[in-house]
């Protein structure tokens, strides 16, 4: 059984189509990055997966319909939707009491262990914590839940780089065990490149690109082409071309590695570069990036 299975997932708000027929299968134990421009439908798709919004089409999360079985599903799924959604009036100690009271999979000792590594005091109210500390608290709570699926929707938005780094480090070291499934959306793609096992680009409600990170690394290359080899390189049909500090950088998909190495400096592209290249191929957006 897949962790998430969707067929023809669709959601419209009036005449606006937020999610336009997504087919999706996420296996257990994957860390999937969902990348897309603002308004691409990421959050709507995640809301459907979390049972926060109704939808058309077929969708099963851990074998359940999230819309009709949200409460049951939330025993096995946890999520951080956006930063700073913890109630501002609650005390950290009350939060621990409450979670221990209502959540069958919440391990209070574990949460206290995570909190002990931070400067968060149990007596503090959420409103007294800095933005970074609120995220630390939320992460500590979520990581103390023995869930099968964790969904993170822009979990580090507006945090400084130290907190962001720490966030993904502890997620990998203290939480991910190869059996849990994690889905994350973020605009800070460079920070999750080494975290992900799978990558998916979504645009205007559709999945426009998907790959595993192993395939990503063996298939996509970026070459900073030596000027005298430029014509030769262009003949190999790069996906995308851009100029950086006077050098021409070409992005290739499934080209021969040794052939490319002869043309200039070879490296694995960043997710951001691939994103720009893929989005450049999208019909209505082509004028910006592709030329």
């Amino acid at each position, binding site marked *: 059984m897949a962790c998430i299975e969707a067929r023809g997932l669709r959601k419209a708000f009036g005449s606006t189509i937020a999610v336009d027929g997504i087919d999706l299968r996420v296996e257990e134990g994957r860390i999937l990055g969902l990348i897309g421009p603002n308004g691409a439908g990421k959050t709507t798709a995640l809301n459907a997966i979390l049972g926060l919004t109704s939808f058309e089409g077929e969708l099963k999360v851990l074998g359940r319909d999230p819309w009709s079985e949200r409460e049951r599903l939330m025993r096995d799924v946890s999520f951080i939707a956006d930063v700073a959604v913890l109630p501002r009036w609650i005390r950290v100690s009350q939060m621990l009491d409450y979670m221990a*009271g209502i959540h069958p999979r919440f391990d209070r000792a574990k949460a206290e262990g995570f909190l002990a590594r931070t400067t968060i005091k149990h007596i503090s109210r959420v409103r007294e914590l800095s933005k970074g500390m609120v995220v630390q608290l939320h992460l500590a709570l979520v990581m103390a839940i023995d869930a099968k699926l964790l969904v993170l929707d822009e979990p580090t938005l507006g945090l400084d780089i130290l907190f962001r780094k720490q966030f993904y480090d502890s997620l990998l070291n203290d939480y991910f065990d190869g059996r849990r499934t994690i889905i994350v959306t973020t605009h800070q793609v460079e920070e999750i490149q080494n975290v992900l096992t799978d990558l998916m680009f979504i645009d205007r409600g559709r999945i426009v690109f998907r790959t595993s990170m192993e395939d990503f690394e063996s298939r996509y290359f970026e070459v900073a082409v030596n000027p005298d080899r430029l014509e030769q390189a262009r003949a190999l049909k790069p996906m995308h071309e851009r100029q950086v500090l006077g050098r021409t950088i070409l992005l290739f998909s499934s080209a021969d590695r040794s052939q490319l190495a002869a043309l200039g400096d070879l490296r694995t592209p960043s997710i951001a570069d691939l994103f720009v290249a893929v989005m450049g191929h999208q019909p209505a957006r082509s004028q910006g990036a592709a030329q």
Partner: protein
Amino acid sequence: MNTHANAVHDSSLESPAAVSVVPPPQTLYWSLRREFWENRSLYIAPLAVAAVFLLGFAVSISHTLRRIRGASLLAAEKQLQAITTPYDLAAGLLMFTGILVAVFYCIDAFQGERRDRSILFWKSLPVSDTTTVLAKAVIPILLLPLLLSAVSFALQWSMFLVASAALSATGQSVSTYWAQLALPQMSFLVIYHLVVVHGIWHAPFYGWFLLVSAWARRMAFLWAILPVLAVVALERLLFNTSNIAVMLGRRLSGGAAEVMPMPGTMPIHPATTHVTFLHFLFSPGLWIGLAVTAAFLAGAVRLRRYRDPN
């Protein structure tokens, strides 16, 4: 995507789920505690009002006792009034405080969690919308009246202690005062009135406020009041009747006919009030009110579920 990469074990998705379940009463219990953590005014306001009133009563006790002495020269009824008025006032003040607190609580109940987006956190937990709505409804309908009863009980008995001390100090009879006051009966009537009228009888109002709070994006208070006024005005214009206004007024004023047979007055004095609980239990007004409340709450559950979080 990548179906080949990880072998999937069906069993691992199902196995521990069966054992770890939180019983529903426990979830409700923590949901209620959560409400009191968030809305401390639920108990702070009545306690503060009671403390201030008790202080005022203690400060003015000699004046009060002089009034009682003065009244005893005139008529028994005047004396009774002089003795019981502060106690009626105390109970009435707490009831009024309770209504204010309950209305503001209900208005903010669902609007607040959307405003600060904490609904996104609450919905990430295995607590159903029904449990959440139920917890928020139990507060004004049951727990707040019980809490007010306890505060009012403590307040009235403290007042009696203060009065007794003052009476003894001035060499007057405590037993006459006690006999006139009939404090145990009075306490009972206050509690009965709070629970039955302010909780159960008023339940449809709180259900309505909760429903509007779940529905309105802003200004829930106006949305709760103005449409009702509009309907009343419309009835007046179209049919030149005021059935709805009369019905609402009767519901609001405590359904004197159903609950206690003494209309018009603050029905807490033992000499003039008779509890007619059985009559109340079988009055259609009670059950119609509860049915309406249930319908409003079901609407609130649905709204909380369907309203998009973002």
